[in-house]
């Protein structure tokens, strides 16, 4: 299964669906989807990198915490993530994210928060699939 993401219909907010062969891909694709929404199609360069790790009580909680960190980087550190490399072990993610200074680009959108609404993460015959709604 090829890793990827898509935007799904949602009246007010942004619903993301991510796919991949392994669970790790879901987190990397979440970064791709996040960037696609925030940068509105602008090409973001990989000029800087940030490292962090997050934990969760389960996979959903982990995804929530992971996206919370990506949003935090944008708001507090002016860093827009465009790509990531992650290691997943025992509901803990160690991540390196690549991206650029957000204020170098104009017309970026803002994301308020990740939510648990309609969230799922599951293993299918073909690989892994996840869904998250972002409050924008």
């Amino acid at each position, binding site marked *: 299964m090829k890793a990827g993401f898509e*935007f*799904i*219909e*949602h*009246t*007010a*907010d*942004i619903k993301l669906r991510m796919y991949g062969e392994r669970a790790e891909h879901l987190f990397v694709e979440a970064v791709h989807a996040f960037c696609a929404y*925030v940068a*509105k*199609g602008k090409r973001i360069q990989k000029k800087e990198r940030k490292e962090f790790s997050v934990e969760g*009580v389960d996979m*959903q*909680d982990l995804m*929530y*915490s992971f996206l*919370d960190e990506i*949003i*935090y980087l*944008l*708001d*507090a550190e*002016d860093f*827009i993530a465009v790509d990531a490399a992650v290691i997943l072990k025992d509901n803990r993610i160690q991540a390196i994210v690549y991206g650029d*200074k*957000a*204020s170098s*680009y*104009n*017309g*970026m*959108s*803002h*994301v*308020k*928060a*990740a*939510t*648990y*609404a*309609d*969230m799922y993460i599951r293993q299918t015959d073909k690989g892994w699939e996840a869904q998250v*709604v972002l*409050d*924008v």
Partner: protein
Amino acid sequence: MIKKISDYIWEIPRTGKMLVPGKVFASDKLMGKIMKDRCLEQIQNVAQLPGIVGYSLGMPDAHFGYGFCVGGVAAFDAKDGIISPGGIGFDINCGVRLLTCSLNKKGFLKKRTQVINEIYQHVPSGAGRNGEFVLDDKKLEEVLEKGLDWAVAKGYAIKEDKECCEDNGRIKGAHAKDVSHRAKERGRSQLGTLGSGNHFLEIQYVEKIFDCATAETFGLEPNQIVVMIHSGSRGLGHQVASDYVQAMGKKYNPDTLPERQLACAPIRSDIGKAYLSAMAAAANFAFVNRQLITYEIRKVFGAHFPNAKLALMYDVAHNIAKFEKHIVDGKEKMVCVHRKGATRSFGPGEKDLPSRYRKTGQPIILPGSMGTFSYVLVGTKESEQLSFSSTAHGAGRALSRTYALEHIKPETVEKELRDYDVVLKAGSRKGMVEEAPAAYKDIDEVARVSHELGLGRLVARLKPLAVIKG
């Protein structure tokens, strides 16, 4: 499952685990749109939360949200009920203020483009643009705990501004210690910024007056220029909500909830109290945010129109929880009213209102969406009986952002706005399309239903002349 019980009132009978019935205020036309998504299911889910009293309510602009619907109102017993951050929303004290200007339409139009361009430069919008008010820890804590009192002391606000904010721009019981370091870091450089999404700043004029006496009290007259600001607590409030949704979910078993996003805690628990304090702090931050945007606008107006004064008519929160007394089953009871995408609509005589509005009821500001009217309404006595003193908060979305991007052309929106005689400054064309007027419900219908039902009565109609979208 939903029954129409009068022209504009629909009831969802109590079934399954619902503790109270649901009720939605809508015309047939609005209900047609409400029923297109899972909004009613969300109203039913909220009806299952412990301590809910009366009804789980949907306002005329209700639409699908996350956990609670947007345009949702629910009151919980102040002793035995819960508090749920999702019932307030991630953007704590997202709200609207309206400034009235002693300038008429004709006078403003001479300098329209220049003025909107300068405001656009001084009020950052979108993501990744920081404001000029970057605060150290001590100052930030003062903002969180003191709200508009801080702004008055620093010369960013006048005394009258404070009087014309809900709760005088300072919700009590706010302790900066209950706001996480992460939340403070996110908000530190965002004071005085608009944000993106549905946030906006519009220069409008009073196009029509419905109720002359009340309009006069509110300081509104035909053809007068007004400025509407729609923003909230920015990253700080969003992080407060994220933190407490997660923490409450971990502490109180989410398996018993219809949805994890409905995470809640007993109002009197330690975490419940901490959230209420953090929510008040974020709300104070939002009042100051809208005040600093006002400060910048006043500077630009002052440079171009030296004789024009911008006075604050009112500042309302539409994402907030408040302790209020309401009649439940014939008895007065203290409840915690959660309003998520809903405006308080206190009628005449309410002692919490500024003295100038105590005879009329409070001003309610219903923002439209750049190519439509906005409205000013007045709070009513009837709304106490019907909706825990609440009404709509705007048009409410009808189309998803994805759908809007796929089906609406930027050129069409641009032409529509030109034909409507609106000058738009937007961060991106995509953002403009996502927020296209066609993506929203009919604001005229929302205002009409609110008026007919008596949730809030029509006072004036406003038409945009210049718009900044984040």
